[in-house]
């Protein structure tokens, strides 16, 4: 049974910057792997470490944000490559949700498919949240997928997420393969009807 996501509660890492692409989330050279295990340690590798592997100033290296489980980002997060390695690295680094202004489509789909909710806030609410967690890294934030709101301090901000993704996460049905398999015989009908590339010798 898949996990159900109703309310995700935790501290937040604020990661500023627009159009953060998946090459930055996980550089290509770390994708020479046969499984997704262990990818968490390469999350934002080139932004977090110098050529010698020494840590650079970065929110993910900041001791004040250690143990946080929600990633806070700006607009266009996850653009570029379709690599599922990107949300996998985020999830395997211990994050359970991402709050942002907008997400690239393939990234959003990949994240949802592995049970990593991506929710959006209006730009003004997002700005307030950034400010709040930058001032107080210990601030607890709640992402409530049932009531569709993000709560922090005394504030409540409405969140958006496509309804089918929200339902799938809340009901623990975010991995669609079981439902796809149910089509059964219908699939064979489509396979028979639709042409496919065939070498005619």
């Amino acid at each position, binding site marked *: 049974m898949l996990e159900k996501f109703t309310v995700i509660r935790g501290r937040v890492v604020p990661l500023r*910057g*627009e*159009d953060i*692409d998946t*090459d*930055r989330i996980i*550089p*290509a*050279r770390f*994708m*020479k*792997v*046969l*499984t*997704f295990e262990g990818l968490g340690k390469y999350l934002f590798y*080139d932004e977090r470490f110098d*050529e010698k592997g020494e840590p650079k100033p970065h929110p993910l290296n900041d001791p004040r944000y250690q143990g946080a489980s929600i990633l806070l980002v700006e*607009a*266009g997060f996850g*653009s*570029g*490559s*379709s*690599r*599922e*390695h990107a*949300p996998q690295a985020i999830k395997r680094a211990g994050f359970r949700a991402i709050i942002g202004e*907008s997400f*690239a*489509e*393939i990234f959003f*789909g*990949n994240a949802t*498919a*592995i049970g990593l909710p991506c929710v959006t806030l209006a730009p003004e609410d997002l700005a307030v949240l950034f400010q709040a967690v930058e001032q107080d890294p210990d601030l607890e934030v709640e992402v409530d997928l049932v009531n569709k709101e993000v709560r922090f301090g005394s504030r409540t901000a409405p969140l958006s997420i*496509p*309804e*089918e993704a929200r*339902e*799938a996460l809340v009901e623990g*049905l975010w*991995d*669609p*393969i079981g*439902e*796809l*398999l149910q*089509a059964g015989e*219908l*699939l064979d009908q*489509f*396979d028979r009807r*639709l*042409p*496919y*590339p*065939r*070498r*005619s010798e």
Partner: protein
Amino acid sequence: MGKTLYEKVWEAHEVRRLKNGQSQLFIDLHLLHEVTSPQAFGMLKDLGLRVRYPHRTFATVDHIVPTHDRTEPFQDPLAQSMLEALRQNTKEHGVTFFDLGSGNQGIVHVIGPQLGLTQPGMTIACGDSHTSTHGAFGAVAFGIGTSQVRDVLATQTLAARKLKVRRINIEGKLAPGVYAKDVILHIIRHLGVKGGLGYAYEYGGSTVEAMDMESRMTLCNMSIEGGARIGYVNPDETTFAYLEGRPYSPKGAEWEEAKRRWRAVASDPDATYDDVVTFRAEEIPPTVTWGINPGQALPIDGRIPLLEELPPEERPLAEEALAYMGFRPGQPIKGVPIQVAFIGSCTNARLSDLREVARHLKGHKVKRGVRALVVPGSEWVARKAEEEGIAEVFREAGFEWRNPGCSMCLAMNPDRLQGDELAASSSNRNYKGRMGSPKGRTVLMSPLMVAAAAVTGEIADAREVFGIGR
């Protein structure tokens, strides 16, 4: 009321509606490569499932292939293990695999069209964002993640939500020395890297109608860089002429039947669109990027923008780009020294790209100190280029003539920038660190502009360097 190609293809492939309102969409053609498939095969195994319709799945190896020495085992054991995993998985599941040395290996988005696998009206998916390339044939083609690769392997379907369609008209005649690459960089520059979110892009108009298939592929390839997951061109006689006689194209009576079907799938003249945008071909200059995403572009004669010239919301990213690229606001892009010139990638490593460059490059020499690479998109492209004497033109000019693969475009093989080298590149992404060095810098441009940069050692106007249109 008329329908778009996108709507027609969608309706023909919708198996059923899922509980959550998404559609279960049948995928006609599934393309695989070594980077995003091993985990999917692993998940399949864990679930005790098989590849449901192996005759609809084709695989090749491209991202990790060394382009210099392909002797096995590769020097990089990780790369070797990925190749072997793909060999093993395709063999176990009866999937056609175009292995190294098969004569058909190459970049997945180059070999699909070249073999006639890519056909109008199809739904095509691949675990790679540049799957949008195949839209050039009037296919609905898009990149997917690895969990979806698993879904397609197991069921030949995936859960998807219908997009809106934006018609992008390009009208008129492109100036000499201006190519499809300039057109798409120009479009992304104007519509933005997030402009296509939620849309499929339909490209049309007299400029696109006049383009050959390989130019249309370049155009559709970079749709994803504009935020659109899908880009396509309606199939026409140009499409059919390209496909005729390819190894996997329909033949005999099936060919005529296929053409009838393909004509019918094109958007109706009275189709309605969610948005329509028009560009004039004459206004499109040779275009190059100056920043860290493909939307940060400008005409070759242009100057890098001053921050105050940009809308406030674009300034933080522009500042970040200037700092990373080491450029000054207001500086002309022309004349910036380069260290590396790269012609390759799924955007621009097809035979027509290499032919066009060779035609102008003949008699020129790569500037001393510039490392220049040309990496053909497939074994077939390489072979043809050898036969036609194109490879020799490149070699004589001082380019390294490499074996096919993705190479420096994303640097999962030994081809990569060193330190903060600046590359003139025909590839599709100029992200920070994209070409394998965390400080490496990329300026995107057409293949001919890369050749001009190689010859002069700096970002240059190919029309001036090669005396085009003067």
